[in-house]
């Protein structure tokens, strides 16, 4: 009886309190940093993307010649590709520092059960 009671207690001790982890200032500033990075860039690429069909549907100025028979709409279309590559490179660079923060949270908070 007594032995079993002890086992239950250690189990409870190992239980991670995620609410505490989520409330910790370390985790909060981590999430805030991620949000400040991801939200503006997501809004930016969605706006940039939908500008293309909006401009081609409601205006004609993109049909202005840019270089020979190549008009601005082609430049805008190709710039969408370049945007994807640039943003994904920026994301990976930034995510490396998020990884470090996340590992730190696992070390400092989660492995201690969220009670630090």
């Amino acid at each position: 009886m007594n032995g079993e009671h002890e086992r239950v207690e250690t189990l409870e001790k190992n239980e991670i309190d995620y609410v505490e982890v989520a409330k910790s200032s370390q985790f909060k500033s981590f999430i805030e940093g991620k949000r400040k990075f991801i939200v503006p860039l997501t809004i930016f690429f969605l706006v940039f993307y939908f500008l293309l069909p909006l401009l081609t549907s409601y205006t004609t100025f993109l049909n202005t010649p840019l270089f020979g028979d190549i008009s601005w709409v082609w430049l805008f279309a190709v710039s969408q590709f370049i945007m994807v590559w640039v943003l994904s490179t920026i994301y990976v660079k930034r995510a490396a520092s998020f990884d470090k923060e996340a590992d730190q949270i696992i070390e400092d908070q989660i492995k201690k059960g969220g009670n630090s």
Partner: protein
Amino acid sequence: MDTTVVVLFLAIVLLTLVITFFAAKQTKSTGDFYTAGGGLTGWQNGLAIAGDYLSAASFLGIAGAIALNGFDGFFYSIGFLIAYLVVLFLVAEPLRNLGKYTLADMINSRFDAKKIRGAAAFSTITIVLFYMIAQLVGAGALIQLLFDIDYWIAVLIVGVMMTIYVLFGGMIATSWVQITKAVLLMAGMVIISFLVLMKFNFNISAMFTEVKSATSHGADYLKPGLKYDDALGTISLMIALVLGTSGLPHILMRFFTVKDAKTARSSVITATWTIGIFYILTLFLGFGAAIYVGESEILSANPGGNMAAPLLADAIGGNILFAFISAVAFATILAVVAGLVLSGASAFAHDIYGQIIKKGKVSDREQMLAARYAALAVSVVSILLALGAQNLNVAFLVSLAFCIAASANLPVILYTIYWKRFNTQGALMAILFGLISALVLVSISPSVFSPVEGAALFHGDPIFPLENPAIVSVPLGFLGGYLGTIFSKENDLKRYAEVKVKAHTGYRKSS
């Protein structure tokens, strides 16, 4: 059918069978079967994502669409690529951190309710079936043209091959078939583009000048609006393309085949470069076909323009290049349908059988067996449906699949990861609103009803004006999730704290 075509065709069949043979020996557990044991590296998975994503609709369809419609064909290329930013920024890493085999696993990391798993599995199966029928019918028609064999034989060949890969080699075979296909496809694209550009001494401006007078559209060919002259329709299509990818089950499943979020991220980068370069090259294929094959010949080979790329290969590279491109197109179809079978099977065997019916109490052996039966069933059903759908115009099914993915799957994914107040009722409503509205709106749209006899499934006036209803159904999916949530008091903040911490840090108890 000439010998070069046959030899290359058989070489592809043989190569994929060898891959399956070795993969079968490594497939020992359920984890191996569904996710290759999570053992793929970033670049491998990146190429496999590209192989899974770049379907015949992309390779042959977009090349044909650009050849026939100029700039408007290029809209697809852009939408399909930008979609990966949504995947990378919002979905890939949390999904990898929370899920195990399927989309339903990820949602169930927050909500235990069986009805949610059931709804998510149902939406997965719906998408898989629609996508699959479109692929198989397209494949049948294409192989019929390329190799000059009957439609039903063509569908059977593709169907039997995909069944063999998945049944015996699971995700390991499927992944390597997709990687092989991605490499072959990129090689084919680069060769054709190089040959086209060489004709213009690598002067892109000269190519634009030439293509301006090559088609019946004249200067309009280089301007937007040739095909998509209706603003709402264009924007609706662009919504489905950019948001649909992050809800496609066979793409989502690929993120469970890597060990952690970091590898998931690096695989998206490899995929983004590969897919991006691919879609840039579709431009040279399309223009090349317009100039060197010509509009009337493309249309007479196939009214949808699907033969533009193989015909261009023939025109500028002769018989050998034609044979190579045909073989690549065949490999392309195989890789995509295999991925679809696997994601359909996982929804049936893991979600419905393993978790809902058996409540998770199944041994690894039983799970494997169930997965294989499910793969066989998904294959057989889709082959039968494809055989029956030969004369139907099913091209709209791909955009319908994207639309359901964007409307039914993406809202629930985003809410589950990012919205604190979200609850069980909300999750269920998000899936149902998105799924039902997409299905209903498409079934009363011009894709299904056309006043011109034979142009669509049914003869009559469409009630809903847009071919792709994403502009209405995606907001409805989000609205359903919102309303379901606020009309139910339930809210497990403790559970959300766990999900949030795990999603963002990648912490797993077992590891």
